[in-house]
C-alpha cells in the first residue's frame, strides 16, 4: 500500500496543506490574545451515532459547537501539540484530523480498516492504532502521515496503552482475551498476559509501575506488573442491587499522582473510584446510562464521562468525588478528549 496516495487525496480535496509552522504560530498568537480564564478548557466528545463531535466549554459546561465528522466516530485524542483533534471514524476506515481553531477536517490518516482506539507516543510523532477487523496494530508516522508498519496481535484488538517512556505498547484483544506487550522499537510482542473476557482498555500509571486493563464481559480490572508481565491483582466490583452481568468495566483514568483510579462500569451506570495504591474500591459514583470513557480537565479538577445510552456527559468534581452536572450532547457519546484551550 502506498501511504502517500491514500493520504494525499483527501488532503488535496480539503486543504492544500496541513497547517504550516507559520500558520501554527499565528494560531498560537490568536489564542494568547483571546485566551481568557486559565480554567476554560475545551472538551471534545465523539458521538458514535450522530457522526459528530460535541465541543464543550468547560468554563460554562455547555456545548459550544457541534462538528460534523465521518461515520461512527469513537476513539478521540488531541495531538501532543494541542493543535489537532484525531478521531477514529471506524465505518470510514480512517482517522480524521481536525484543526481545533477552525473545526475543519484538514487531513485523514492511513489508519488501516475499522480503527477504534489509538494512542500517541510522548513526542506526538507516532500513532498506534488498533484495527479491530484485522487483528493488527497499525503504526503511523503522524508528521508524514504514512504507515510505518503493523504488528499482528490477537482477535479484535481494541485497548491501546503506551508506557510513559514510550518503549512498551499494550494492546488488548477482545476475543483472544489478552494484553499483548509490544516492544515499540522492534515492533515485536514480548509478552502476552491472559486477562478476563473482552479486554477493552489499557492504561499505564505515570510511574510505569502498573498497567490497568479493563475486561468488559469479565467485569474486572487486571492490574499487571509491566516488568514481570503478571497479573498481580484483580479488581472486582460488587454493587448491591445490581446483577453481575450489568457490571462491565470499560474506560480507565488514573490521576497524575497515581493515587486514584476511575473505572467506567458501562451498563452499571457508575464510575468506580479506586484507591490506586491498595486497589480497593472507595466509592461508586452514579453517572448517566452506559458510561464508556472519561477524561480529566488538564488541572484534574474535573473528570468528564461519556454516557452512551443517555446521550450525555457527567461532570465529576474530582476533589469531592461528586457528580455535579450533566450535559446533553449528541447521540450515543463514546470518546472524550480535553484540550488546554
Amino acid at each position, binding site marked *: 500500500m502506498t501511504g502517500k496516495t491514500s493520504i494525499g487525496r483527501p488532503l488535496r480535496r480539503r486543504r492544500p496543506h496541513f497547517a504550516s509552522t507559520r500558520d501554527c504560530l499565528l494560531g498560537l498568537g490568536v489564542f494568547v490574545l483571546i485566551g481568557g480564564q486559565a480554567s476554560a478548557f475545551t472538551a471534545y466528545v465523539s458521538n458514535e451515532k450522530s457522526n459528530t463531535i460535541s465541543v464543550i466549554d468547560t468554563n460554562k459546561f455547555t456545548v459550544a459547537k457541534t462538528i460534523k465528522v465521518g461515520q461512527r466516530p469513537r476513539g478521540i485524542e488531541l495531538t501532543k501539540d494541542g493543535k489537532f483533534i484525531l478521531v477514529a471514524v471506524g465505518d470510514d476506515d480512517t482517522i480524521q484530523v481536525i484543526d481545533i481553531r477552525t473545526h475543519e477536517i484538514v487531513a485523514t490518516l492511513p489508519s488501516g480498516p475499522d480503527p477504534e482506539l489509538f494512542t500517541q507516543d510522548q513526542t506526538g510523532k507516532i500513532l498506534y492504532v488498533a484495527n479491530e477487523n484485522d487483528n493488527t496494530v497499525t503504526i503511523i508516522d503522524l508528521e508524514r502521515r504514512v504507515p510505518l508498519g503493523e504488528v499482528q496481535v490477537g482477535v479484535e484488538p481494541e485497548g491501546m496503552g503506551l508506557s510513559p517512556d514510550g518503549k512498551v505498547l499494550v494492546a488488548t484483544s*477482545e476475543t483472544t*482475551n489478552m494484553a499483548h506487550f509490544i516492544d515499540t522499537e522492534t515492533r515485536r*510482542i514480548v509478552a*502476552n498476559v491472559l486477562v*478476563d*473476557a473482552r479486554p477493552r482498555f489499557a492504561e499505564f500509571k505515570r510511574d510505569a509501575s502498573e498497567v490497568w486493563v479493563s475486561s468488559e*464481559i469479565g467485569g474486572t480490572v487486571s492490574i499487571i506488573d509491566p516488568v514481570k508481565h503478571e497479573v498481580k491483582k484483580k479488581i472486582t466490583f460488587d454493587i448491591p442491587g445490581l446483577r*453481575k452481568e450489568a457490571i462491565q468495566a470499560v474506560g480507565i483514568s488514573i490521576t497524575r499522582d497515581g493515587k486514584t483510579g476511575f473505572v467506567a462500569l458501562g*451498563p452499571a451506570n457508575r464510575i468506580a473510584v479506586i484507591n490506586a495504591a491498595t486497589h480497593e474500591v472507595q466509592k461508586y459514583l452514579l453517572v448517566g446510562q452506559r458510561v464508556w470513557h472519561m477524561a480529566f480537565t488538564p488541572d484534574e479538577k474535573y473528570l468528564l464521562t461519556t454516557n452512551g445510552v443517555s446521550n450525555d456527559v457527567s461532570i465529576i468534581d474530582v476533589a469531592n468525588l461528586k457528580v455535579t452536572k450533566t450535559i446533553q450532547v449528541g447521540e450515543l457519546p463514546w470518546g472524550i478528549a480535553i484540550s488546554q484551550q
Partner: protein
Amino acid sequence: MIRLLLAGTFFFAWMSASTDAAEVNIGYLRRTDPKSTLSLIQTPANNDGIAGARLAIDDDNTTGRFLSQQFSLEDVRLAGGADAVAAIIALSERGVSVVIADLPADELLKAADAATPRKILFFNVSASDDRLREEDCRANVIHTAPTRSMLADALAQYLVWKQWRRWLLVVGSHAEDGLYGDALRRSAKRFGARIVQDRVFEDTGGARRTDSGVVQIQRQLPIFTQGAPPYDVLVAADESEVFASYLPYRTWDPRPVAGSAGLVPTSWDGSHDQWGAVQLQDRFMKQFSRRMTARDMQAWTAVRMIGDSASRTRSTDPIVMLDFLKGPDFALAAFKGQRLTLRDWNLQLRQPILLSDGRMIVSVSPQEGFLHQVSELDTLGIDRPESQCRLNSR
C-alpha cells in the same frame, strides 16, 4: 477423593501443557441429510454449523499461538443409516476427547452414553429439546443451543411487553411442532398471555415448491385462520417447515405472526450487529461468503468455550475443562451484550435470545422488568427449582 483426583489431573495437565505444545482435537459429528424449508433463502448451507466451529478454531488458535496450544477440527458426517455410536468409538480411538454434536436428541443421547466410559465431553449445538436438559440430562453434555422453552419465553416476554397478550396458537402436526407448541403454552401461562384458541395445522404431505405456485396458498391460509376469537398476534409452532412461513400477510384478520415465522426467537441472526457483533459477522462473511446462522453461532460458542477453558486452565483434559466451565470463573464474551455462563445444574448455556424478523433484530430478551434473584437470563427457560435434572446425584 474425587476432588483430589481432579486436582491431580489438573496438576498433570498443567505440567504437560507448560512443558510442550498441547493439542486439542475436536470432533464435529453431524447429520448431513438435506433439510427442505419453505423459504429458499433459509435452506441450510452444506457447512451450516461446522462453519461456525471452523471460525472459532481460528479464533482459538490465535490465542493458542501465544500459549502453545493448538486446536483442530475433524468433520465426521453421518449420512442415511450411519451410526453415531460407531463414529464416537472411532473418534475416541483416535484420541478425540471433545465432540461437537450436531445431532437430533435420540442420537445425541446414544452417542453420549457410549462415550461416558471413554470420558468424552460433548457440546450439543443443535438439539433444542428440553428433555436433554431435564429428565434426559447427562453429566458429559454441555448445551450451547437454547431450548424450546428458552426461545418461547424470550418471545413471550416481548409479546407481553408489547401488550399483545391474546394469542391464536397454531401448531403443526409433527412431534417436534407439538413440543414447541407445549413450550409456547407454558410461556403464555408463565408471563400472563392468553391463548384464545389452539389450532392444529395438519401436514397433508406434498411438495414445498410447485409449478402452480402460491395461488392455492393465498386462498387456503385466510380460510384456515378465519373465525378466530379476537386476538392480538398469531403464534405458530412449525419446526417441520410445513406452513408457518406462509402465514404472514395471509391471515384472515390483519395480525402479526410470531414463533416459527414473522418474529422469530433465535440465538443468532445474520443481521445482528450490536455489541461488537459486526466484527464476528465480517470475519464469518470473509471466510465463508454467506451470513452466519444460529447453528453456526451455537457451534462457534462451543468451540470458543473449549478454547477459553483450555487457555484459562492451561489444560486439554475434558474433565478439567468441564469443571472450569461449570465454575464461577467462566464468562464467555459472545457479542450478546453480557457474559454467558453455564447453568451448573443441567449444563445449559445461559444466553440472551434475539428476536428477528428475518431482516432486522427487533428486540433482545430477557426484556426489561423480568427480574430474577440469580441472573435475569434465568427468566428464560426452565429454572433450577423446576428442573428435573439431577446431575449431582448421578
